[in-house]
């Protein structure tokens, strides 16, 4: 009896296991294997050597590019968190009716009806040398020369990241905020807390799990990205994703795999550190 029920339980879990094994575990496993292979200009060959890693860790470019990746992730995180928290706070605590909440929330998701690339590229005519932004600023007399740093710069990359990923911050924070019992806020008010004190001592601590989930989304998305950096910097800036994509376009698969493994480990470490701070389990 017990054995059969065990078998049934395994069978029930089997489809999910099969999906995960095929589409998650096997590819990662293969990437790890390939990262130890060797490559010449025109071929790759199976081997078990540390050349790829030695080259990666020996090159100053790697450290620069990883630093740039962390920089993008951090700055994007600061902006998405500030904007996302504000929007979620407004939706959760200032919009009274649920219909209005749902309507405004759907409004936030409308940009997501178009693809990432289109949303990104639509910034280019706006920010370009003769784009709307520069022309408007010149015609208002605020600047005399077009601003060079608006497009193809760290500014435009981070702008696009913030635009693309703020909603990933809004959703989990809004979700956590909606679960905060309103009587906590009344109790804080009853105990003499001002609006800001309530925000700092009650709402932010209780929203931490949502902030953490949003942070994980944004950090992993930004650290794994390559297309945004390429388009918005006009191929002038690099992050780890671009390093990998360059290797691939040069058919240097083992080297790309090694970089991918290092990036994966880095991202996992970052998430591991984040999870040390906040327990998100009750949110899942």
């Amino acid at each position, binding site marked *: 009896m017990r054995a059969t029920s065990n078998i049934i339980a395994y069978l029930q879990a089997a489809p999910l296991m099969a999906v995960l094994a095929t589409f998650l575990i096997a590819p990662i496993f293969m990437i790890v294997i390939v990262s130890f292979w060797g490559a010449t200009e025109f071929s790759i060959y199976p081997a078990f050597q540390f050349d790829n890693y030695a080259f990666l860790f020996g090159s100053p470019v790697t450290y620069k590019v990883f630093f740039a990746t962390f920089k993008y992730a951090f700055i994007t995180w600061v902006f998405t968190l500030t904007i996302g928290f504000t929007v979620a706070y407004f939706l959760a605590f200032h919009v009274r009716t649920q219909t209005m909440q749902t309507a405004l929330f759907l409004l936030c998701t409308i940009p997501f009806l178009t693809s990432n690339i289109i949303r990104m590229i639509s910034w280019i005519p706006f920010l370009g040398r003769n784009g709307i932004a520069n022309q408007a600023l010149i015609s208002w007399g605020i600047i005399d020369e077009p601003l060079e740093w608006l497009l193809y710069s760290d500014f435009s990359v981070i702008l696009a990241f913030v635009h693309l990923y703020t909603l990933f911050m809004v959703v989990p924070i809004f979700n956590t905020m909606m679960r905060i019992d309103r*009587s906590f806020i*009344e*109790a804080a008010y*009853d*105990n*003499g*807390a001002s609006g800001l004190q309530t925000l700092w*001592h009650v709402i932010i601590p*209780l929203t931490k799990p949502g902030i953490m989930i949003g942070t994980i989304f944004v950090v992993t998305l930004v650290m794994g990205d390559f297309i945004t950096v390429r388009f918005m910097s006009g191929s002038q800036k690099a992050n780890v994703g671009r390093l990998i994509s360059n290797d691939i376009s040069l058919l240097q698969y083992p080297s790309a795999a090694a970089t991918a493994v290092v990036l994966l480990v880095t991202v996992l470490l970052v998430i591991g550190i984040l999870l040390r701070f906040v327990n998100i389990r009750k949110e899942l």
Partner: protein
Amino acid sequence: MTNGCDLELINLTKKYGDALAVDRINAHFKAGQYVCLLGPSGCGKSSTLRMIAGHEDVTDGSIVLDGFDVSYLPPAKRGTAMMFQNYALFPHLSVRDNAAFSLRMKGQDKATRYAVADELLEMVDMSALADRLPSQLSGGQQQRVALARALVTKPKVLLLDEPLSALDPFLRVRMRTELKKLQRELGITFIHVTHGQDEALALGDELVVMNNAVIEQSGPARDVWSTPKTEFVARFMGGHNVITFEGEKAALRADDVRFGAEGLPATITSIEYQGAHFALNTRTQAGEDILALMPDEVFFDTPKKPGDAVSLTWDEGRLHRLQT
């Protein structure tokens, strides 16, 4: 015990849109009393309490505490403190930090506020668990912490919103004793909202019975119980029969009803043993139900059974006219 902190409600009104939740109520509570606001759900008792606390805007009228109109002051400036129905303890703060919350908001340093908080936790007998989180406490313990947190602000009036409703019956009776004891020791006014008449009688020096947004009757607990003014109060407080007597509604306490040789003819419809006494439901020829409570000894001496014809009598003056 009087320290002059009387609480007065003057024409206090609350409207939600067009719906009238509280309709021009007037009340005067002397300082240091245990007041129970009593009524069925939706009668306006919670709105009244929340207006006194400052968590609900006053539509019209005033709340006067200690001679000052506090109707438009923020909750913390009124001299009131509220204990919430679900206690609303901050889940991310320890028991001690919860109790010290209002002092922290005032900017007192850690040592000072912990000293005061510990004193209050000692009073509610929660010192031993001061480092725990609220989720690690039982319902009764959470309530003690909520009490300590409310009392840290040194309120003149403590407002309790159905404080015992979340507890199991056994704990409810125990906490009720402790609430009463605490109120006597502190000597401040407690205003306690409840829908249970037994709780109100057990605790309240002063009862305020509300129904349909107005006060049906207020006064000392004994007066409200023994001389209900209206049919609603008589029925809500329980233990009373409302009968038509000489064309007018009158209240008659169930334990005043006796079976005699002559009187109002009625038939017993059901009998319930309740330990100390028997509850006998009877129906008169006019079709009115009358409950008679009979001490168990009397019942065993003269047993009755459903279907028996009886005559109901009561002593002169026990029948009590009701206002319509």
